[in-house]
């Protein structure tokens, strides 16, 4: 309520772009009448319900589900209209389902309430009028100055004013926000009074928004009798609620966003629900069954009135109507009859199916979490299932979109080599090499040469300075290390001395592992970064001298510019700018004559799969610096379009540099990456690599992962190929697309396109971000869709597609495009970093890797696995099995209810369409709940029609279930026909038996309840035995549940008919079952009908076997292959 009220109140404020916060005493007279703006309080409400609204709100939400609503309607009809079955038969199951769901949701909400309470009542210290007051967290108001001590979490979003550290920084971890556990540095607002009591300022900042990494604000500080001072505020000044203070004794900050407006709360808005294809199939089948139900009711109603129109049929003397019935309007009677038939046949759509499906999904997902193959000893974690709704979707994947860095590769960077002025320096890790660090032949000069020492040192200084790395907290080890290094560090391998690996313990912390690799690389060459203190960077150079540089500005890295720079001032007073970045973003900004020498190395390194960066520098004259400084300061203070303004200044400063060299960093492939990719391709899955990386690097990774084979013909659509033709880019694009389309799509004979294993030419497709945006956003409307189609068709015929230089949003765009293409294939995205979140959310199934780039991908994923190699088992084994299980579950459920209700429908033709139920109410209610639910649940949890090891070894088996094979209309019709056949057999078999109802040798006759009970017995046995026939994997649980269910049915029937039940108004089943079994004819007919029903089933299985004995043969083959794996034969006893 409060929240809503706040929203209302905040309505006006929301329209304004920024909010103003007053800190400390108000600047009295300078402001006219001061109205404190209203902000929401610091209460976190994550719970959905309160005690009062729980019942109505929860019920409303539950009945919004179409199935629940349907059952409610049926129940109400039963209550209102005089119907054949009592309301209990459908009310009880519905009540059960609703209650269980409500209890579950209530419990979850109670947990949330408890968590909220804990957070909201947490005691925090607030500075008020110079006193420290302890308050409950929920009472914090915007503008309060809050004190937080070490290891506490921040109670709201704070602007850092004061830190106990000398340099005005503090460290935080944001593990609970984005999962990144490394320490991040935040800075105090510069030049703030030490005495916060005296502080008087206003903060202008943007309205709350969920982006964790964006914040723009401005702080105006009023000092006594002085002009106000303005300071810019950025994300580095903002401490987020939920983050934890580390390595800092205490800080003080002023609250800017509170409660539900904090970035954390804004980020907890629910994810959109993903629905699986199976669920869509269920809904489609449901519609069919609903139509069957309606038409059944309609047919019966019509026939009833046709039949009654014959004389004497409507109201025979033995069954007169009550006066009220006689008076009822004919059309009303028709309508109530229709409803009665609906109620009578409503069991065709069972409530229990939803319960069983939910249970299957929930329990089934546990097998993923339990799987010890997914356990990674390194991070000591197994797989994580965030949603169990998509288990079966894992068996349907047609496209895998994978990130490269951290997913295909380990994101474990290692400095491999560098090139200075065109000379290559390789550092070999292996101790066996004589030269730890040597100059190998550059292609430029055949003679071993090296660059001048001056350039070398400049290059290494650049590596040491141009980054945002921090040194881990100084310890006593740090002092010793300096000494240790003195001994180790030597010249650049001039005297061929073996260089010992630098102390790995020396901890560096950075947001990107590349930077650490570079700094560590510099250490190897003798330049050690000692840390940043009071804006002074210290470097230990080769001569063991400490060099000091004053850090003036950091021009941060961003994915658009793809470079970063620092501006430093050396002791000698020179102002230097060092810049490092991707080749494409550096080359245009340096003198062109320097480029060529370096470009060769960069290209070669990229081809080998290394990540390359170019390093450049320039001297800034005093005027230049002053100009840049002013520009940067101004841009940083801007409240609007700060990013754009900063970008403009950055671009202006980073020009006219001179190139020093380039670095190459290796990113190792993940364990078993190639094997995984190979088996996924074998499973008919198309793999697209979406990366922000360079084409060459990505391409080499693709080769290494065997996504591209040697004989794969690559079709390139990149900026390079587009510029080759000396034509306008768009014309060239058009030409290339047509050409590739011809190659990949038209020239392939139509039959072959589908088969992956054919000997036809494999194609690989490469596209980069720029070309992609040309394809997607073509200037001509008509061409746009044409290009898109061409592009998609080409891609669909390629074995692998590589998209490089992608922005995160483009990744999502591609996923969306494929997802919405013809046939709407099932897509899976896998990634580990924040840049993959968009595609993880977009794809049908999102998988996060518990990698190094934080936990954001994991949080937003549907499933998280520790390593890429686990994807294979997740899809090929778990996905396959889940799909088969749930598909069988769904089909079986529809089938068993069809043959359950069909006899009841047929009986109407023999009882004057009077809605006489064939089965007793107890049987109607218990059929789905007790007699037939457990075997299918056990089946859908335990079935392994092919055992897991075989599935893993034969990836091609995955194709057998592709394209929703078991839930398409074909199988559905097959199952439906089977249900119809069984229903007909049950009903007419017993019908002909009853042409003489004297079935015992004492001449006594059987009545209608005996009739129904015989049909029901045959039904329960047939339906259960059919499942038994389908079961390929009989564990003791299957045995227990299948035979147990049948036994339970028999025992229950004896019990139900054996006692006079005091609460029943009629005893119609009294001794019916026992009497039935005392007749030999009934035994014979039950056996006959069960066998007759199952005959086609057995025949199908047998006839399928000799022609396609795949599962068995395969398992035997694989047994031969891995006969040494004794263990396997235990679990897959395939011999008969």
């Amino acid at each position: 309520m409060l929240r809503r009220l706040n929203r209302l109140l905040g309505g006006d404020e929301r329209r304004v772009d920024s909010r103003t916060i007053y800190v400390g005493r108000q600047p009295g007279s300078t402001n006219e009448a001061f109205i404190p703006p209203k902000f929401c309080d610091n209460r976190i409400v994550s719970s959905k319900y309160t005690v009062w609204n729980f019942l109505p709100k929860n019920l409303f939400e539950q009945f919004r589900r179409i199935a629940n609503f349907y059952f409610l309607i049926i129940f109400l009809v039963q209550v209102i209209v005089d119907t054949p079955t009592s309301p209990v038969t459908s009310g009880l199951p519905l009540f059960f389902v609703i209650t269980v769901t409500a209890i579950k949701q209530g419990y979850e909400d109670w947990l949330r309430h408890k968590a909220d309470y804990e957070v909201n009542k947490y005691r925090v210290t607030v500075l008020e009028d110079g006193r420290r007051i302890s308050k409950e967290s929920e009472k914090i108001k915007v503008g309060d100055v809050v004190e937080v001590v070490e290891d506490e979490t921040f109670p709201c979003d704070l602007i850092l004013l004061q830190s106990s550290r000398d340099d005005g920084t503090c460290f935080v971890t944001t593990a609970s926000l984005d999962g990144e556990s490394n320490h991040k540095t935040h800075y105090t607002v510069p030049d703030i009074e030490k005495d916060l009591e005296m502080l008087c300022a206003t903060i202008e900042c943007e309205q709350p928004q969920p982006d964790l990494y964006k914040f723009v604000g401005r702080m105006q500080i009023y000092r006594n009798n002085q002009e106000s001072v303005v300071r810019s505020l950025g994300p580095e000044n903002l401490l987020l609620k939920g983050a934890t203070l580390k390595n800092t004794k205490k800080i003080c900050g002023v609250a800017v966003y509170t409660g539900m407006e904090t970035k954390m709360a804004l980020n907890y808005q629910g994810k959109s629900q993903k629905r699986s294809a199976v669920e869509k199939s269920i809904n489609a089948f449901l519609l069919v069954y609903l139509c069957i139900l309606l038409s059944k009711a309609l047919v019966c109603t019509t026939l009833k009135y046709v039949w009654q129109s014959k004389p004497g049929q409507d109201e025979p003397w033995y069954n007169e109507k009550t006066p009220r019935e006689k008076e009822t309007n004919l059309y009303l009677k028709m309508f109530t009859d229709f409803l009665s038939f609906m109620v009578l046949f409503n069991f065709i759509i069972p409530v229990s199916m939803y319960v069983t499906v939910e249970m299957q999904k929930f329990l089934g997902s546990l097998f993923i979490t339990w799987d010890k193959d997914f356990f990674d000893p390194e991070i000591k974690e197994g797989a994580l299932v965030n949603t169990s709704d998509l288990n079966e979707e894992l068996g349907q994947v047609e496209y895998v979109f994978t990130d490269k860095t951290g997913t295909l590769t380990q994101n474990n960077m290692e400095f491999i080599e560098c090139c200075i002025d065109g000379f290559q320096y390789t550092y070999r890790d292996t101790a066996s090499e004589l030269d730890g660090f040597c100059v190998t032949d550059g292609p430029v000069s055949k003679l071993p040469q090296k660059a001048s020492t001056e350039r070398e040192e400049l290059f290494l200084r650049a590596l040491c300075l141009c980054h945002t790395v921090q040194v881990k907290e100084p310890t006593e080890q740090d002092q010793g290390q300096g000494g240790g290094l003195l001994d180790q560090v030597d010249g650049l391998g001039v005297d061929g001395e073996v260089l010992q690996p630098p102390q790995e313990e020396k901890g560096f912390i950075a947001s990107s592992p590349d930077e650490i690799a570079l700094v560590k690389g510099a250490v190897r060459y003798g330049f050690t970064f000692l840390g940043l203190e009071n804006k002074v960077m210290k470097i230990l150079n080769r001569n063991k001298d400490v060099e000091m540089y004053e850090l003036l500005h950091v021009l941060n890295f961003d994915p658009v510019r793809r470079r970063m720079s620092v501006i430093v001032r050396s002791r000698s007073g020179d102002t230097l700018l060092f810049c490092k970045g991707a080749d494409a973003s550096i080359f245009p900004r340096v003198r062109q004559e320097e480029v060529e020498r370096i470009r060769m190395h960069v290209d070669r390194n990229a081809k080998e799969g290394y990540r390359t960066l170019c390093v450049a520098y320039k001297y800034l004259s005093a005027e230049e610096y002053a100009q840049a400084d002013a520009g940067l300061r101004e841009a940083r203070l801007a409240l609007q379009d700060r990013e754009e303004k900063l970008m403009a200044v950055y671009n202006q400063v980073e020009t006219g540099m001179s190139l020093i060299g380039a670095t190459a960093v290796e990113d190792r492939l993940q364990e078993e990456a190639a094997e995984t990719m190979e088996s996924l391709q074998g499973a008919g899955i198309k793999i697209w690599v979406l990366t922000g990386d360079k084409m060459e690097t990505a391409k080499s990774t693709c080769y290494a992962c065997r996504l591209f084979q040697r004989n794969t013909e690559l079709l390139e659509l990149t900026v390079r190929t587009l510029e080759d033709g000396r034509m306008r880019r768009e014309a060239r694009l058009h030409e290339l697309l047509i050409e590739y389309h011809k190659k990949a799509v038209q020239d392939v004979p139509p039959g072959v396109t589908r088969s992956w294993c054919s000997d036809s030419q494999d194609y690989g497709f490469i596209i980069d971000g720029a070309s992609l945006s040309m394809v997607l956003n073509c200037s001509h409307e008509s061409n746009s869709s044409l290009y898109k189609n061409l592009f998609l068709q080409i891609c669909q015929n390629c074995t692998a597609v590589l998209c490089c230089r992608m922005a995160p949003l483009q990744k999502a765009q591609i996923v969306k495009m494929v997802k919405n293409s013809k046939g709407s294939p099932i897509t899976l995205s896998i990634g580990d970093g924040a840049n993959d979140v968009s595609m993880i959310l977009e794809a049908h199934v999102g998988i996060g890797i518990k990698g190094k780039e934080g936990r954001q991908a994991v949080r937003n994923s549907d499933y998280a696995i520790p390593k890429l190699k686990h994807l294979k088992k997740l899809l090929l084994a778990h996905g396959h099995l889940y799909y088969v299980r749930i598909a069988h579950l769904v089909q079986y459920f529809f089938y068993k209810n069809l043959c359950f209700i069909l006899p009841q429908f047929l009986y109407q033709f023999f009882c004057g369409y009077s809605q006489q139920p064939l089965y007793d109410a107890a049987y109607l209610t218990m059929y789905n709940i007790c007699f037939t639910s457990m075997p299918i649940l056990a089946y859908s949890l335990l079935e392994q029609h092919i055992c897991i090891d075989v599935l893993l070894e034969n990836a091609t088996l995955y194709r057998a279930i592709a394209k929703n094979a078991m839930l398409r209309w074909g199988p559905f019709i097959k199952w439906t026909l089977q249900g119809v056949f069984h229903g007909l057999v049950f009903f007419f078999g017993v019908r002909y038996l009853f042409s003489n109802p004297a079935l015992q040798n004492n001449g006594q006759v059987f009545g209608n309840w005996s009739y129904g009970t015989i049909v029901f017995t045959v039904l329960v046995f047939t339906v259960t035995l059919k499942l038994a026939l389908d079961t390929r994997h009989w564990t003791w649980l299957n045995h227990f549940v299948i035979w147990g269910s049948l036994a339970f049915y028999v025992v229950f029937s004896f019990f139900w008919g054996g006692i006079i039940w005091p609460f029943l108004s009629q005893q119609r089943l009294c001794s019916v079952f026992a009497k039935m079994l005392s007749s030999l004819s009934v035994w014979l007919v039950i056996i006959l009908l069960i066998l007759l029903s199952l005959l086609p089933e057995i025949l199908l299985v047998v006839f399928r076997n000799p022609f396609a004995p795949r599962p068995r043969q395969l398992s035997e083959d694989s047994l031969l292959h891995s006969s040494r794996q004794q263990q396997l034969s235990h679990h897959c006893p395939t011999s008969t």
Partner: protein
Amino acid sequence: MVKQKQETANQPDNTAFTQQRLPAWQPIISAGIVIPGFLIIGLAFIGIGVALFVTSQSIQVLEMDYTGVDKTSPCNRCTDPNVKSCLCQMDFSIDTLFKGPVFFYYGLSNYYQNFRKYGVSIDYNQLFGDLSYFTSPSEKCSPYQYDNNNNPIVPCGAMANSMFSDTFKLFQIVNGTNKEVPLDGKGIAWWTDSNIKYRNPSVTPLQMAFNNTVKPLLWANPAYQLDPADANNNGFINQDFLVWMRRAALPNFRKLYRRITSGDYTQGLPAGNYTLQIAYNYPVLSFGGRKTVVFSNVSWMGGKNDFLGIAYLVIGSMCIIMSIVMLIVYAKFRFSEEE
């Protein structure tokens, strides 16, 4: 130590169940099992089928329609609703001995005892002997709940009210005189119905329980006078009443009327001429129904029913044909595989 503990806490349980490695039996339905299986099943079914068919054929049945639709039919004059307590006679002859015990059924057709409203129009509490329901019968019995004077009807409801009311007497014509064949009305209803499901009120004499109630409108005698010959066969446990109250499953049905087991007829009905005397009370023509009497003897499988025998024979031979077809297919497949 602590670290180790943590590790084990995070690590999934390594049990056969959690790893989906429970030992399992994986049956494979192969031709090798199915062909002999089908053969055995087929032979067994044919065996059973022959036995059933022979048994069924050996059962003698004599069915006579006595509705009297035909003008020439002896009961034709009784079809007039205005004729009260009409008696008619059907003559028939038996050529060979009709083996005993002979069961005497009456049959009705196009009679919907399985109407839903008809079926629920009953008050089990009354029939269970609960006196409180004698004075206020269940609402479900309406419109057979109270008579026009608002007296409660016991037993109430359409089902009880429409109890079959024709009675039969069978005579053998021996030397021109009618010799009555004794009909046995004991044990024609389910034992559980008369002993467990239905009960008379524990009031003696029984008549006292029915004070202030009226008999069902169509009944000739009140419930406590259904069988004047046997005092224990009255009230709700009267055998004829119980037979009627067991609803038939289909609109054409027969119900057991009497058995011929005693006297000279223990061995069955000898060849000769017989007369069936019918007290024709039950109207069926208004709804197009027919009435029949059926004499039949029974076997271990019950009354005559060819369906079971034929079905067993057909399915048995189908199994055998299938196994032969499979054998051929399988042999061919094997053959081609060896190539």
